[in-house]
Structures are given as C-alpha cells and as structure tokens.
C-alpha cells in the first residue's frame, strides 16, 4: 500500500480504516468482486476523491463505509467502531450521527418541502419539534436556500436540490461526509458551486470528506488526496500535487 496510509496507521488518527475489505456479489455462477481487498486509511479532516471507471466499485466501497451495506469479508472501522460488528440499530444510529450522505440524484423526498426534507434526520434523531425548524432554517440558510424553505424538490433546479441535500447531510453535524458523484447531474459551473460549499465545510468545520467522482479535473481542483479504484481494487493513492495549500509530506505515488 501507499506510504501515506502506512504513516497514518502509525499516527493512529484514522477516521476510516479498512482492512482487506471485500464485497462480492454472486450472480448465478459468476462472482462479481465489486470491492476486492481494499485497505485504506482516511485521516481526520481529509478531502479525498475516489476515482475510477464505471463499475470499478466506487459506490460499493462508499456504501460499505456508510454502513449501508455489510462487507463479505474484511473490516471497516470508523472512529473505532467496526461496522461489521454493529447491530442494525447501531448501524442506523451510526448513519444518523456520524456520517452525512450526498448522492448524484439528490435523493430528496419529493412529497416533502425543503424544510421537511432537511428536518427529517432531526426527526430520526428525536430532536425537539420546535428546535428542528430553526436548525433546518439555519442549515438551508448556510447553503443559500433561505428563500426556498417551503418549496418542493421538483420546483428547484438540480444545483438547488443538491444544496438542499447537502444541508440535510450536515444537519446532524456529522464528522464524515460521504458523497457519491455529487456533481454528476450538474453542469460544471453548478458542480463547482456545490464543491465550493463542500470545501468550505471541510475547512471550517474540519469535516472529513470522501467523494466519489469520475471527473478528474474536479477531483484535482478540490481534493487533497486522490484514490483510484479499478475492478474493486485500490490501484493508486496519491497526494494532489496541484493543491498548493497542502504541504506535500512525501512523493505520494507507490
């Protein structure tokens, strides 16, 4: 593996640590190795882009880290919790409190307005009814949607929907943001607006970001570390040299 991950292991400050992580799907006779022996360390406050061709297993890996899926073998440890050992209820609490998720297709609930959508995680977290509204309002204000509180998702542009879903992902103040192609349905300008917001949260809140994308340019512009997947395997893990603000510790390439 890479020297970076080796070093972070020594530091013991990993937010996410996977070891020989596998997720296999059996389709009749054939075995699909969507994630095939991935060992990865993510440190606190990192902004990582997960790159790879379609079908390389990016989403599968992200779902394992998100606790939405369980590994076939290997382990995922997030903030000291081995997700494979958590119960269904513990996993849901983990998803609720520790991670925030953003998707390519926004995944807002169409029958609810933005306030209701953003309040939803607060409802699951059993936050007081009257506190919810002000929290949701603040979150929507932060992503610049103060004027659209009562609008349904269908009444908004793609960029606005993705902002709303960002607001929802951040409402429970997660320490880890997992984004699966958050700009995939947006034009490049709008995509950059969204990623500007993500970078802002990464820098101001110290939130660790793991973002799946297949747009190399966007990844190089925002991420501090690029991880490449191919056929479910981790094939490259490099520091983003174009990122001048981050001091280069080592060469990065294996």
């Amino acid at each position, binding site marked *: 593996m890479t020297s970076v991950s080796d070093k972070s292991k020594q530091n013991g400050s990993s937010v996410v640590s996977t070891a020989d992580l596998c997720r296999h799907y059996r389709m009749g006779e054939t075995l699909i190795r969507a994630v095939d022996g991935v060992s990865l360390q993510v440190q606190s406050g990192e902004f990582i882009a997960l790159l790879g061709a379609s079908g390389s297993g990016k989403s599968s890996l992200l*779902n394992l880290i998100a606790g939405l*899926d369980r590994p076939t073998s290997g382990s995922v440890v997030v903030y000291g919790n081995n997700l494979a050992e958590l119960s269904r209820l513990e996993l*849901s609490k983990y998803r*609720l409190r520790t991670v925030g*998720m953003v998707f390519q297709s926004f995944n807002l*609930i169409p029958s609810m307005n933005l306030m209701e959508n953003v309040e939803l*995680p607060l409802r699951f977290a059993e936050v007081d009814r009257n506190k919810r509204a002000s929290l949701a309002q603040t979150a929507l204000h932060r992503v610049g949607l103060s004027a659209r509180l009562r609008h349904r998702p269908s009444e908004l542009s793609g960029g606005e929907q993705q902002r709303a879903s960002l607001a929802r992902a951040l409402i429970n103040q997660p320490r880890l943001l997992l984004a699966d192609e958050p700009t995939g349905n947006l034009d490049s300008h709008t995509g950059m607006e969204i990623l500007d917001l993500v970078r802002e949260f990464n820098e101001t809140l110290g939130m660790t970001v793991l973002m799946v994308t297949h747009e190399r340019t966007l990844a190089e512009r925002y991420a501090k570390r690029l991880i490449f997947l191919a056929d479910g395997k981790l094939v490259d893990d490099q520091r983003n040299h174009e990122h001048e603000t981050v001091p280069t510790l080592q060469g990065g390439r294996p």
Partner: protein
Amino acid sequence: MICAPADSPALDESAREKITQLRDVLEASPDIRFITELRYQDKPHLTLIAALPSSAKERDAFENMQGQFFSSDSAPEAILQKSFAEELLGKRRKPGEDDTNVAELGPPLLGKDLVMRYAERMATPGPAITASETNGTQNAVSDHADDVAGAAYSVISREQTLKIVGISDLDPDSLRGPGRARVFLPLKFAENLHVMQATSLRDNSSAAANTPTYATVSVRVRSAKNVATVENAIRKMGFNTFSIVDATRSMRQFFAVLDLFLGIFGSLALAVASIGIVNTLVMAILERRREIGIMKAIGASDVDVKKLFFAEAGAMGVLGGAVGVALGWTIGRVINIGTNIYLKRQELPPEQIWFVPWWLVLGAIVFALLVSLISGLYPASRAARLDPVQALRYE
C-alpha cells in the same frame, strides 16, 4: 299477559292469588269471555262478552269513553264497544267511511237496559250419575276419582238485566284491548255469574267439579322489562303463557336474522378492507422503495420506518372509520326521514328508529384504527427490512 293452564295444576283462584303475589305483578285477573245473546228492545244480538277488571279504568284504552266506567266491580252494568252500539241502533257502516263519532252513540243508549241470556254452570254435589253407572263394579276409591273427573256439574239457563253505562271507541282488534269482545262487564260481577265457558267442556282436572277454574288469567306487570321474568315464574308454576312480547318474537327473530346477515356482511367487509389495507401498504412500499432507502441512508432505523408506515395505516384506519361512521349516520338519517314521512301519512307520531350513539362512533373509529394497525403490521415490518442499497438503486 294471559296464562292458560297446562296439563298439571288447575288455574283456579288459589293459582291466581299465587300469581298475584309474584314479584312485579300488579294484578292477575281471570279472563272471562263468552259468546251469548243480548236482547235490546226485544231484538237478539249475539256477541262476545268479556270481563274488565276495575284497573282497566286507568288504562288509556278507555280514555275516549262516552258515559262512565262501572260504578262498582260487581254492578250489573255494561260498556259497549262502538261497533256493537252502532249495531244496537241499527246503524250500518258504509265501507270506507268507518268513523261514527262515539258522542253520537251516547245519548240514545246510555242508561238503557240490556237483557243477557247465558248458561250458568253449577257444581253438583256428589258423584255424577253417569260416572257411577259406568264404573259401578269397581272399588270406591277409583269410583270417586272417576266421579270427580267426570262432568260433575249441571247447566242452567239464566237471564240478567244490564245497564249500559259507557260506550268505548276502543278498537276491538287492538292488542291492548281485551281481544275482540264488544261488550264488557265488571269482573267480579262476571265471575259471580259462573257463565259456562267454551273451555269448561274440555275441563277434566280434579278441581273442575268443585272450584271453578279459569281458562286464562290476565296478568299485568309493573313494566315491560319484567314480562320475561314473570312469564318464567308462571311457567314454573306449570302454566302456559302468552304475552305481547311473544307477539313481537317474530319481529325480534327478523331483526336477529338481519343482525346475522349484517354481521356476516360486516365480517366480509372487514376481511376485504384488511386485505385492501395490506395491499395498499405493500404497494406503497414498492412505490416508495427509494424513499425508504433514502431515509435509511440518512439515518432512519428499522423502527423509524416501521412507525412511519404504521402511522400511515393508522391514518387510513381513522379516516376510513370516520368516513364509515359519517356514511352510516347519513343512511340512518335518510331512513329516519323516510319512516317519519310514512308515519306522518299514517298519522302516527314520529319515531327515531335509527340512531347512532356516541360510543358507537368512537368505538367504530377505534375499531377501524385497530384493524388497520393490525393490517399494517406485516407491510410495516416488510418496509423496515428493506435493504437500503437495493432500495436506493431502484428508480
């Protein structure tokens, strides 16, 4: 209520007294009725005569009577039913126009005399001749027994003058009236006449010879709800009973059958509705798979998802219950309005035959809620078990 003797005991004075002493019995009077000839101004009229206890005076049945009620319970007086009064006056009813005012009948008849001819039944002391002849060769004990069982009385023809004191417009066919009789006599007076009644001929109980027995005794009870218990008590004494409650039995049976049918339809509707709820919710889960996936991705637990679908099922139930109650209430209103229009045409006071009590409203809604929650159990747990990754892939 009337009770006729069954096989075993004699329905005589002592039995009547026993009945009077039963709980909730106000009065038990022998039912005396016989058909005989009455002469008025030398013209004979054959009619059914019945005895009335003095308590009948208080009954609303005699409210519109012309003249007076009997001056005493043993006075030789008579109250005529309107149609009989018309007959005496030679008035003929034209079909269609059947309402002569009772007031018109009063003046010509009140205070006039009627002559009643009747057969008096007299107990003959000692064994009857016929009986001892047939059984003469047997021993004395059996002789005596047979004697008593035989017709140990004689029949004497008598005449009695009656004064007309009242004319009643009581409907002779009404159940409240003393069944079809058209001339009424005071009870004590009628009893003392010892008129031979139709049932006397069949009478072969041991008491028949000496003490008179009654064919029937009318029993008045405190209130309608006591009827069944009093009837039971009298039946235990060994008599047959009949009451208005019996008359409504067929009606009650009809309603029981109606209830049964409604119950069956209700259960069927319930089963269909439950399946409907299950189906609707399962469909909702399929349609909203993605939504469930999203909710799980942003932190909903199995219980959260379950609650959501449960709440939905409950809302469906409460709404359905409320709509059902409203519909039932409306149908009831329509039936009430319909029957009241009918009753008004019949010049009867309006009745509210259909009403929905508040506890039924509440009960129906709670029941609907329960049914839908039970129906929601399976769909809700199915939704909760959904794999979020699969659900999110679903477009």
